Each structure stands twice: as C-alpha cells, then as structure tokens.
C-alpha cells in the first residue's frame, strides 16, 4: 500500500494506482479530457496536470503512479495557470458556438472554461476548417470542434476493437478520420456510437430526432432490451419520450453498447404502437375496451376448458418480456387455467 497526501488529505492506495485514482478515492476531482480507465495510458491532453512537491515540472495525474510520501496539489497557482494555458490554446481553434452546440451541458471544455473563467482565447491565428462528416446514419463528426484528445480513436481501437478511426495528417492539419479518408459510412465502422459517448466535446454527436438540452432530460438506468448481453444503459427522457440512450458501466458491458442498444429506440414512441385492445368482429380487428377484450378471452378460456379440458389451451411466453411477466404468464397457465402448455422461443 502507498500513502500520499493530496491537497492536505491523507490517502492510501494500491501499488500502481495513479495520482488521479488516488484523488478520486477521496473525492477530489481532477479534470481530464483524454483519460479513460479502459485505455492504455497515453497522456496527450495534459489538462490533468498537478503539482508534486519536489518535482521539477507539473505531472499528468492520469498516468503518473502515486508513490509513497508524495505530496500533491491539484489546484495550485501553477496548476491553474497551466490549465488555463491549455484551454487558451484549445479555444484558439474552437468555434465558440455553445449557444447552439448540442453537447452543451455535457461538454468538458465548456465546464472547464467556466471553472477557470476562460471567456475567449488570447491567440489570434489560422483556424481549422473541415467539412462535417454526416455520412453515418446515427452520428456526425465535426472536426472543427475536435480537441484531438484521441479518445474516439482509442475507444474504437482498444475497447470496441473495430479500428475504424485514426489520426490523419500531421501538425496543424492533424484531425480524426478513417484510414483511407473515405468517410465514416464507407469505413469499417459498425455504428456502435461508443466513440461518440466518450468524446468530451461536441465533435462527435448523435444525430438527434428532435431538440433537447442535456439539462432538460431525466436519466433512468435500465437494461438493454435486445440481446442477451444485458448491457446497462441510461435512457434520457424529455416530455415522456426517450431522446437518447447512453451507456453505463455495468458488469457485462464495461460502458459499451452496440448500434441496437444505443440508437434503435424509436420503436418505443412509434405511432404504430398498439394503444387499445382489438377484437375481431366480422372478420376485422376492431378497437374495444379492456373489459370487452377480457370478457372475450375469459369466456373463451372457460368454453375451451369445459369442452376440451385445460390442455386444449396453450401459450407462448416471451423471451423479451420481463422475468415478472413470464412468471405470471406461467402461473396463469398452470395455476389458473390448469395446463403446462407453456413454452417460449428459447429454441428459435
């Protein structure tokens, strides 16, 4: 175990833990742009710098391991100055359109500029200009907003393991692209949106179905309803409608989702949803009340039972329904109708 002091507080961590992890442990927040515990450490943005007593320069908290007896300051004058300089440089090449930027409210750059009182850049010079890549069905890539933190590239190459994205060109021209610059739609991208979820700014954005602000939505954690992986996710809800789905770090998904879980939620609020019971009358399905529908069903069950016995009723339960739904379905069949004729499509 290693003992160190951060902003005057003692903390004990395991060998190998970074300064950032040590700070997290006692609730001290150090800002990051490029860090993600699922990536190999790369330390490219330097916004996480901290002052370590006795060290000659500031250190990146996300990759430097904590060592015994370390004394760390996370918001010293030198640290704040360094962070402001980094923000200044980023702003020199970032469109300040937070008024309309869809990432507003979930943007690390916006948050840090607010925290460190950065209103504008002190630099004047050439600005990047790129055409927005809108070719993917579910998200857009706007390189004029990119801060080159590399998260999307590492997400795609180290975690999602699709290798669709990479750094392209050098120096001022550096930007995020696809290996042959053929555009995202033509790349190997599988539209999982995992790069989009980790982009700290508004460079990678989901294509929205309608307008919402991140501060307007309620978040509800739930389990994906598609495949058996059972990814954990958060539904962002506004006006009784799902606006977006974001991944949550669950046991099984490590904060990943696939295209279905992340982007295919329109069915929930689709106009074709059934809203009332239907009963077939004169050969056609017609709207009815619940009472009418229940009467028809209950009478039919009784009739079949009386006439042919309970085993003349059968049911298919659902591998998509809740555990609780399935339980009451089987209880209805077994305890109330009196037959074991219940199955579901586990086999199909």
């Amino acid at each position, binding site marked *: 175990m290693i003992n160190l002091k951060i902003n005057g507080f003692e903390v004990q961590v395991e060998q190998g833990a970074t300064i950032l992890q040590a700070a997290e442990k006692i609730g001290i927040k150090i800002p990051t742009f490029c860090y993600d515990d699922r990536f190999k450490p790369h330390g490219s943005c330097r916004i996480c710098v901290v002052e370590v007593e006795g060290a000659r320069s500031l250190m990146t908290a996300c990759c430097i391991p904590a060592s015994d007896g370390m004394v760390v300051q996370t918001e010293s004058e030198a640290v704040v100055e360094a962070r402001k300089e980094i923000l200044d440089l980023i702003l020199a090449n970032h469109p300040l359109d937070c008024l309309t930027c869809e990432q507003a409210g979930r943007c690390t750059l916006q948050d840090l500029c607010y925290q460190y009182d950065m209103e504008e850049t002190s630099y004047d010079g050439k600005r990047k200009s790129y055409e927005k890549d809108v070719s993917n*069905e579910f998200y857009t890539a706007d390189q004029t907003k990119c801060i080159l933190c590399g998260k999307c590239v590492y997400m795609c190459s180290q975690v999602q393991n699709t290798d669709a994205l990479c750094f392209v060109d050098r120096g001022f021209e550096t930007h995020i692209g696809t290996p042959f610059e053929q555009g995202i739609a033509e790349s190997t991208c599988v539209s999982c949106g995992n790069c989009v979820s980790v982009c700290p700014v508004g460079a990678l954005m989901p294509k929205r179905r309608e307008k919402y602000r991140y501060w307007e939505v309620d978040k509800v954690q739930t389990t994906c309803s598609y495949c058996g992986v059972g990814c954990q996710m958060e539904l962002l809800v506004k006006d009784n409608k799902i606006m977006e789905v974001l991944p949550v770090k669950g046991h099984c998904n490590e904060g990943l989702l696939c295209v*279905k879980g992340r982007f*295919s939620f*329109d069915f929930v609020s689709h106009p074709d949803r059934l809203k009332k019971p239907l009963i077939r009358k004169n050969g056609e399905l017609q709207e009815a009340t619940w009472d009418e529908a*229940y009467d028809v069903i209950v009478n039919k069950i009784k009739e079949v039972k009386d006439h042919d016995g309970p085993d003349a009723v059968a049911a298919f339960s659902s591998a998509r329904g809740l555990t609780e739904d399935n339980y009451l379905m089987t209880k209805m069949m077994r305890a109330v109708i009196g037959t074991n004729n219940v199955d*579901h499509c586990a086999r199909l």
Partner: protein
Amino acid sequence: MTNSIADIQTADTMFITGSNTTENHPVIGAQLKRAVKAGKKLIVADPREIEMAEYADVFLKIKPGTSVALHNAMMNVILEEGLEDKAYIQNTTEGFDELKKVVEKYTPEYVADICEVDAEDIRKAARLYGEAGTATIIYCMGITQHVTGTESVMTLSNLAMLTGNLGKAGGGVNPLRGQNNVQGACDMGALPNVFTGYQPVTNEAIVKKFEDAWGVKLSDKPGLTITDTVKAIEEDRVKMLYVFGENPMISDPDTKHVEKALKKAFVVVQDLFLTETAELADVVLPAAAYAEKDGTFVNTERRVQRVRKAVDAPGEAKPDWVIFMEIMNRLGYEKQYKDAEEVFEEIRQVTPQYAGISYERLETKGIAWPCPTEEHPGTPILHIGKPARGAGLFKAIEFVESEELGDPEYPLVLTTGRILYQYHTRSMTGKTEGINKIAPESYIEMNPELAKKKGIKDGDVVKVKSRRGEVQIKAKVTDRVEENVLFIPFHWSEGANVLTNGEVFDQFSKIPGLKVTGINVEKLA
C-alpha cells in the same frame, strides 16, 4: 453460461463455434476481440467467414450440420496426443471408456471430408484447445438449431470435461443467449416441463410445493412445446393459443404451417405492435414496452438486472404482468400484486436459485444466480470443484449426416442467422430509420463461383426453393460462404423461414433444424 462474460476473456484459448459474436452479441464480440489482441488464442468454427474468423489462429469453415464430427475429431487428436486431463477424468467423470471407443474412428483425415476442412487445421485446433492452461467454449444457435443440436452441445461438454475445463475460471461451456431475457423466461418455467428454477412438473414433491404456494391443484403432465403446439392445433387437440410478445409468423420454421395453425385456433396476441402474427389474432392486447415498466431481465451469464420505468405507456397499453393478473382475477383467482417487486418477492419464495435476490440488492448492481441467501454474493462461475450433477457424464455421440441433405433436387445447403443491425423479427429495430437504411431488405449470400455457374450477378433477384416453399430474394455475392453453402438472415418474412424445416426436431430439445436446409437456387428468368 457456466462462466461469466468477464471470465471467458481470461481463458488462454477461446473456441467460438456457431456464434457470429460480433453481430449477435456485439459487446461480447468487442471484448473477445480485445482478448485476442492481448494474446489469447482463438479457434473459430463456422460455415461462414464471420468477423471473428479474421482474428482466429485457426478458422474451420465447416459444412453446416457437421459440428458433432468436428468435436469428435478434436477429442480424437487430444487423446491421440495425450493432451487430456487424466486426473480430472479419473476423479470427476464417468463414461470415459465408451467415449474413447467412439471417437477413435473420428480421425482428422476422416472428419476433414465430412466437415470439408483441412485435417491439419483440425489438429491445430485440437492442440490449441487441449494444450491451453484454461480453454473456454462459446457457442450459440449455430450449434443448437440443428436436429442434432443437443448432441452437439453434449460433444462440447465432452471436450471441456476431457481437458478438465469445466468448473473453473477461464473454462466452461458457454451458450450465448439470443434474446434479452431468454434466460429469465427459462428460469421462470416458461417451458412445458418445469416450474420456476427448473423444478420438474412431473416431480410429486415439487408439484405439492407449488400447490401449497399457489393454493390450487396442478397438473403433473408435461405440456406442449411451441412446435408440438402448432401440430396439436392442426390435429384439433389445442383450440386456443395465447401468444405473448412473440411473432411466430416470422420466427418459427416453416411459416406455412404456422399460418395455418394461427388461422385455425382462437388466438390472443399481446404485443407492442400489430405484428404479422397479431394480424391473424382474434383478440389483440396492447402491451407496455421495456422502458414503460419496472422489472428485471436476466442476461446470458445468469445475471438478474433491473429494468426501470422511464416513460408512460401509450394509450391504454399495460405491463404484461398486469394483464395476466387481471385475467387470472377474472377467472376467479383472487391474488393481486401492487407492483412488479411484489411479483418478484413471490418468485424468490418458490425459486431456490433466486431466494437471495431482492430489488433492494439489485438497486446498485445485478446478481448472478444461484443466490440462495441474502448474504450470498451470487455465482458467476458454475460447477466449481465438480459438475452440478456430481460426476460429469461423458456421452459418446456418433455423427449423423442431416437428412435434409442428399436430395439431388435440393443439392445446396442453406443456413440462417441474425445480422448486426436488425433484431429478431424487426418489430423493434424496423422502426428506426437509420437501421432500415443500412439493412433495408432480405438477401441471400452466395459464393462467387456458384453465382457464376448459375449466371447470377450481385444484386440480382433469385428464386430459392426448398421442399417447403419458395422465396424470391436479392443475391449478395460474397466468398464469406463456400460454394455449396448459402445464408439468409431470418429477420424478414420474405426469408429463411419459408424454406426451413418445421417438422424434424432435435429429439431432446425439440429445436427444429433451422441451420441446415436443402435448397436450390435459380436466376429469375
């Protein structure tokens, strides 16, 4: 799964068979690819050159329906080269001698012809699996949806036991469950022969237990499977069918028979949409979607996880369990539940594996069953120490060629599966515009050589015929499949299940043989 999702990535060697993981379980696919990049070994056996094949140390592009032969051959090599775990076999298993006798004739050379792969590759695969410190097996519908599916799974267990890879971290035989809550539905006894927690309906003491819990007399006669039900309707033995959240018109094999049955019986359908099946129903009930209700799903690693209500259901739609409760009440069974949690509390009482799980515990994270008490942490890895049934029983199994094949009129092999962008019968994914743009329609994959012979070009509409039906469908020319093998995704009504066989089942699991169908293909004149 015997082991957890996190655990299978720790194996030294992974053997993936009959699972197109990156498309059907994409997030697990991503994790497995990461494991391979980090140096884990990978064996892939599949009739199609799926994405995982690119990452494999050995890829066996086997002929559909020949898995049993392949597994036997791998065991043959393992025994031949002395790679078996003798202590494990001695201490924890039974039936080894017979197994040994049976696999003797499955030499790599003999099986190479059956599977249409290279004998040397079979040897390589067997060594990679047999020599590994820990080796895991991951499989899916490509193994189970065969007339010999259960037997094929048994041969996988044999393979794992032979090398001492059961009941330990990084080992196991791990089926990936297709739908989000197949595991939960099975756990709840949505199967004709068991109550919740796999408690047999034929066991007197169990029946008594449920009679006490539910306060009624119960039947101890096993019920009908889906496929038997369809037949029973045709034969007038079943008069009424209640379909909850399924769309057998598309998902079941042999669509024609299913349609006939649905038209004949009195059918109630409870779903989100007016599906192809609902259109044939006598009564249709509007159900709430997952985002509109509280409850749980159980994932492929047996982890029970919370589902939480985020929005209100549209119109008068209700959570499914509420509908069942109200019908029960109207049939004179008085029990009422005020919420899903109360239903779950009852589940805990009658299901030993769930006894220790509560919504309160699930609030922060999911729990893998068996979880017998509130103090129990759950069981991410099954059979630690020894198999659940005491001694692990080897079941020696001979390979039998599918009867579907060998008909000169239908000389080609059709296999089916899912694709990344669509899900099941598309009643959910089909409502997302972007998804439909990427995956708009059904197609058939065929090898360039076959296409050339038949004068078919990529994108041509072709006629596909089997003994059961005929579809017209767009050709996708690709060398993902071998010359005599074709593939249709099963998401579309104009697709695979018109052609597949709904009559011949696996004798144990009653799964129809969906993965092997004899067909013929012609260019549309």
